[in-house]
């Protein structure tokens, strides 16, 4: 049983730090729970992420907490990462995760998902990709789209901060046209890549563009996307999580920036294929949503 890997042997309980005991006793694992996990439990329960070194007030860090709170079955979930700011958080997630290279995350995830299906034919194991916009849309675009073409049963979540933040603020394909960043000293010359549209065209059964402003909305999208990926095929979430550092905002201004985004540039976009729609309806009836 996957949950057993968190169970501390009684002989060692007295020497284990609190965070580990908490993980066993007070995290919301899906097993032995009637209701779906969710954002509402964040305040009372042990989170699946420990302290990490992102900037104070980083919307990406907050959004990752929402994502982790919404995983339908974390004890059977594998997360694949990429390089960038996000990779500073990944070692601190209490799940099996992989960081391998910059841009290859959907390829690694494809291999893992297929092998887990092969090795555990009687279990449902979810594979979720978490990466930034540089990894998803620039250096890794081929691998992202090809995994959609191949109908890999994985969920890809792009933390879109519209910039290469970890390397010091360079233009990315997701940067808005006209924005001045490093490597675009006179402003970006072409439009932001409509990745959520590409995802739809490339075969994703569920594609969303949103901001990280509303925790509940993020959690709902994450949950739906992972459930659809389990049964139907690839799913994609683009979540705007601005780099407050690079656009000159202070630690408490990230939420405002995302809320502003909700109104125009990141107006909620949601594509659901007919098969996925039907499946989600079934999930609702079964209490999975």
């Amino acid at each position, binding site marked *: 049983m996957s949950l057993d*890997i968190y169970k501390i042997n009684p002989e060692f309980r007295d020497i284990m730090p609190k965070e580990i005991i908490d993980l066993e006793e007070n995290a919301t694992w899906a097993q032995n729970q009637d209701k779906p996990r969710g954002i509402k439990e964040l305040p009372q329960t042990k989170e699946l992420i420990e302290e990490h070194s992102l900037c104070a007030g980083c919307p990406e860090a907050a959004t990752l907490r929402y994502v982790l709170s919404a995983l339908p079955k974390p004890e059977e979930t*594998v997360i694949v990462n990429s390089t960038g700011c996000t990779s500073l958080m990944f070692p601190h997630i209490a799940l099996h995760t992989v960081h391998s290279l910059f841009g290859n995350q959907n390829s690694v995830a494809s*291999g893992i998902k*297929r092998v887990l299906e*092969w090795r555990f034919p009687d279990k449902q194991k979810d594979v979720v990709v978490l990466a930034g916009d540089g990894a998803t849309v620039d250096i890794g675009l081929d691998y992202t789209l090809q995994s959609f073409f191949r109908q890999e049963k994985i969920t890809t979540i792009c933390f879109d901060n519209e910039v290469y933040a970890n390397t010091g603020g360079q233009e990315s394909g997701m940067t808005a046209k006209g924005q001045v960043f490093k490597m675009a000293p006179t402003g970006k010359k072409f439009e932001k890549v409509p990745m959520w549209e590409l995802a739809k065209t490339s075969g994703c059964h569920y594609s969303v563009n949103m901001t990280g402003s509303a925790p509940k909305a993020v959690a709902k999208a994450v949950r739906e996307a992972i459930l659809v990926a389990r049964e139907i095929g690839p799913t994609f979430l683009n979540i705007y999580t601005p780099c407050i550092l690079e656009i000159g905002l202070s630690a408490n201004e990230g939420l405002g920036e995302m809320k502003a985004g909700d109104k125009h540039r990141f107006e909620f976009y949601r594509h659901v294929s007919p098969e996925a729609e039907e499946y989600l309806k079934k999930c609702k009836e079964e209490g999975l949503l």
Partner: protein
Amino acid sequence: MGKITDMTETHNWSGQKLVSIEHMLFEAPRTKHFMTGSEVLKEAVKRATVDASVSYPITPQSEAAHLIGELWAEGYVGVYFRGENEFGVMSEVAGCSMAGARTVTTTSGPGTLRAMENFAMWSGTRAPMQLCLMARGINSPLTIQPDNLEVQYLLETGCMIWYAENVQELFDMSLAAFTVAEQPDVHVPIITAVDGFFVSHTREAVELPADDIALKPYNPYAAPLPPIDSEMPPGRFLRDPFVMKSNYISYATHASWQWEIRSAVERSKPYARKLLNGLVHVTGNEDAEIAFVTCGTASNQAKEGQRELEKLGIKSKVLKLRTIRPFPEEELIKELEGVKHVIVPEFNVVGWLANEVKAKLYGKVDVNIHAGPRVAGGMSLPAEAIIQEVQEVLNAAKGA
């Protein structure tokens, strides 16, 4: 179609009887077949209880990759698909291996270079997959010919590199490779190299055990780190962690980690010695003063040269290196006792094997090392060219 759950204590999912590597290599009765290197790799994979393979077309490895696909269609291999390009494929097999699968893939020349970043990642994450490399030239200009320059680029990736001379060796070596790579104290990727076309497309006699036996499955829980499957503690496990931008001693971690990969490669030696019958194979006159140090097809050509030289009254021997990483330094030094001239014939323009030999023997053996003859771009290296160069070396030595 077989399912992994069909596997029993004695038989794998395709109904083959599970045997030890020793039985497979040394005890099972064999019959003669006549086939190419591509075909023989299929035969090896068929007998290896392989969980996963990902493929991509590139000459000359495509046929081997097709044939592994046929094994999947027949139910011998669990997971198989065509990836988008070699960078993707090498990441896909990394995923397969990290998720606990016995994994194999193939590539050649430009594919190797495209995928390059992956190989160091493979070893760093201790993923014990096998890459069968069918060496081909590197652009530019475009070439599809046999030329093993690409191996130079792989030398310091932290992967083991073995080199097979012919179709028979490719079969035996690729089976042994799974076993050695999966040893818990080794557990790094292995590249089994052959010269493309010279082995992949050459048809020759080969002795094979029956195909109703297969190697025991890979056990991902007898490994130096947990597989990515949420089934082994610690529950919080990143393979592998990002240690930059931290206030702890990341440089020591990275240094130690890199040394550990090299140590792991070194630990493969006793296993390889046993399963390959030694890391260096010797043919020719034991007491010769001329020794060819070779790998792959250059060994063939040197043996042809050795035989012709003998007809001319010149004694020589061929020291064929079967492993390049780890480098069989101890064996080579022992075999060079009494040798005055080392000749290193190669199928690439830079002479990477000669460079290796020089670096490893420097200050340890008093011998003249001649880096050549070398051919590149797919040219053949006929015995005639070898004989001529040996005579020039001998004449120069006399003149000196």
